[in-house]
């Protein structure tokens, strides 16, 4: 059995998106219930969050944007940059705790206290651009994590694997000129789904050309296409890149019962996908894999999906 960290902090619940918003704190409770239900809590290293140091957030985000975010939260506004992005007074703090908790998790892994981890954070991050909030995301958690691994821990090559059903536009744009971070995303075709980016001809620019890879899935498609694309696109790309750490943008919204997309992935296929990523992690980076929660909105399916996900990390 692996030593798996589980970042869970009740203060993530304070980020209140109001009524009728799909990105609710109930999601984290559903995730927790699912992991508890599997009877594996006692085998996990529980991690609670500390507040991130601003300097790490500034490795990705524009200082003016960060200040704007703080001011709008404190002023009592209920949206930021777009009506999709519902906020409360505590959103700014929750976002700092999300980043801080993940960076603490990185420290535990890099000092060999844990092997891998699942970070169940809110708000999510992969749509956040360096100077713009988008798609329920404010700080790009996974992008900041990649920069932290490089700057604090001297990791040279980080792979980001994004299995959320929406393209991680923020993550792609932050690293598209950078050959030291490989970004792979599998998502619903951008002509149909938010945010309308992540076409297969987007492959990185300038020095980062060839270090971005997008696999597209059409509405109605599911397991068969995922098996084909993960084996045909993701595996060769990661084998070629040979990362030192793998970060996963884990969205569960491609599930067939999740109403946020038209993609029909089964619970079994989610498990297979994560197992495949873990096998890649074993092959290239001593199993150093950190999974960070992005989307996934079906409160009925989140418990089983998160439970299975963490069991695979534990290798139990």
């Amino acid at each position, binding site marked *: 059995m692996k030593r798996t960290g589980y970042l869970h902090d009740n203060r993530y619940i304070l980020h209140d998106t109001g009524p009728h918003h799909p990105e609710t704190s109930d999601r984290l409770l559903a995730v927790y219930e699912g992991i508890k239900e599997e009877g594996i809590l006692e085998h996990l290293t529980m991690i609670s969050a500390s507040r991130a140091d601003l300097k790490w957030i500034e490795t990705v985000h524009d200082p003016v944007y960060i200040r704007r975010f703080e001011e709008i939260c404190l002023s009592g506004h209920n949206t930021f940059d777009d009506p*999709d992005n519902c906020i409360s007074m505590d959103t700014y703090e929750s976002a700092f705790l999300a980043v801080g908790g993940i960076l603490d998790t990185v420290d535990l892994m890099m000092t060999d206290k844990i092997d891998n981890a699942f970070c169940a954070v809110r708000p999510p991050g992969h749509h956040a651009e360096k100077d713009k909030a988008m798609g329920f995301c404010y700080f790009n958690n996974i992008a900041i994590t990649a920069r932290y691994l490089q700057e604090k821990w001297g990791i040279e090559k980080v792979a980001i694997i994004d299995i959320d059903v929406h393209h991680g*536009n923020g993550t792609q744009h932050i690293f598209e000129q950078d050959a030291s971070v490989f970004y792979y995303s599998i998502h619903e075709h951008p002509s149909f789904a938010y945010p309308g980016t992540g076409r297969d001809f987007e492959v990185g620019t300038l020095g980062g050309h060839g270090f971005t890879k997008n696999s597209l899935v*059409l*509405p*109605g498609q599911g397991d068969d296409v995922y098996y084909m694309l993960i084996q045909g696109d993701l595996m060769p790309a990661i084998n070629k890149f040979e990362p030192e750490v793998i970060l996963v943008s884990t969205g569960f919204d491609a599930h067939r019962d999740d109403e946020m997309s038209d993609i029909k992935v089964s619970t079994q296929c989610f498990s297979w996908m994560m197992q495949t990523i873990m096998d890649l992690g074993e092959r290239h980076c001593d199993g150093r894999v950190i999974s960070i929660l992005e989307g996934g909105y079906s409160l009925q399916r989140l418990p089983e999906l998160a439970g299975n996900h963490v069991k695979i990390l534990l290798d139990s």
Partner: protein
Amino acid sequence: MFVSNHMKKTVITVDQDASVFEAQQLMAEKQIRHLPIVDAENRLLAIVTDRDIRSALPYTLLKGSHTDEEKAGLIDLKVKNIMTLDPKSISPMDTIQDALLLIQQHKVGAFPVINEKKELMGILSVRDLLSSFINVLNINEPGTLLCVLVEEKVGQLKKLVDTITEEGISFGSVLVNRHWEEDKRAVFIYLLTNNVVRVKKKITALGFSLLDPMSWYIDNLSQKE
């Protein structure tokens, strides 16, 4: 939607006495395919295109496998020998819709834009038209596309617009296809949001059907040329 808002106002022109090789080099440098020719008063005389040049030069030259003698033999070939005189042009006050129909009709890649005195004001290429339609469709903005099937009767679109507005969602664009199936039209609504779950339910509750995205487009669009 006027041509004047979408055309390129800085036009690269060529002298009619320039050699074809000079024109070819100019196109390569500027990455363009159309060179208008004007007189001393900037009045449009003719146009030369990359296709005119390709047709005028032997295959060996285009491939780069020519001999020096072959090239020397063509050095006197001038733009004026291959240009199209009095080409089809458009006015800055024509609309983008006019330009679309004319490009389809005349099967050209660009139109010189001239005023009533025949002075060259700009050039509008297929590429410029595409950019303007990307803007109109708003597909550079993040959003989600829905397709709703509605009956061919008055007031249907209003219901949809009201429902979406109630949800506080902004519109990116709305396209209507009138020839979807008998007495039905398909409305493609691009919404500037990630959050369409509730609005989809409300639209369905009003009695509209949301089309399976995989049955959209090509097969169902009318084939009228």
